[in-house]
């Protein structure tokens, strides 16, 4: 029987890898995918902790996180495509001003 703490530790490792991806990469799409990785790590921790309490509430929160992530991806990708249309380059270091 694997204790839920092992799942929580694994989720911490995945979260850290996601943080490294956000900090190190320059392509906004890869940064975005690293954020998805961090969201998934948090979801895994939710389910693991729900297992220690014997309640399904953790799983329901994960369901809501998935919905919010879907909305976030739709809007975020639309923003990245709009920026690419305007600048023809996607590099987060070029985008230091919050205007067109």
């Amino acid at each position: 029987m694997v204790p839920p703490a092992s799942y929580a530790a694994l989720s911490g490792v995945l979260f850290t890898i996601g943080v490294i991806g956000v900090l190190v990469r320059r392509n906004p799409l890869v940064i975005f995918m690293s954020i998805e990785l961090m969201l998934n790590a948090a979801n895994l921790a939710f389910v693991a902790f729900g297992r220690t309490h014997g309640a399904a509430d953790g799983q329901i929160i994960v369901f809501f996180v998935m919905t919010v992530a879907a909305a976030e991806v739709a809007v975020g990708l639309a923003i990245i495509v709009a920026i690419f249309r305007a600048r023809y380059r996607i590099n987060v270091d070029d985008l230091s001003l919050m205007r067109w």
Partner: protein
Amino acid sequence: MEWVAFLIVAACAVASAVGLVVRANPLHGALFLVANLFCVAVLYLMLRAEFLALAQVIVYAGAIMVLFIFAIMLLVPGRAETGPDPLGRARRLAVPVAALLGLIVVPLVARTGGPAVAPPPGGAGAIGRRLFTDYLFPFEVTSVLLLAALVGALTLAKRRSTP
């Protein structure tokens, strides 16, 4: 036996996450992320969250990643991240700093919680019943959020007719 399965799936999850960060081509990164999402779905199954495992595969690996791959193909794959890096030194520093964060976070989350108790029902019926009784208001708010995201994405993607 369960430990063996857990260790294999965990190793696959970590390896695919590292692959996402390391590979230069974002398309390879997207495929690594799909592998990682499948690994997490298997972990959900091992935690007896059957509905979430299926939702993970359908929503994340199915819908969201297709959107990602569409965007990558649209934005000329493999052309970003070339040329000199003015922030190279800071980026190399970011890796040990983030590793330090991991050294803090992993023992912290591993220490919380206790032994596993009887698993809560994780099937679609049980989750749906809770969702439409105790969590009805957040559920309805979620539908408004999705509508707002839909309208926002449409507005952003529309070409401006008059400048």
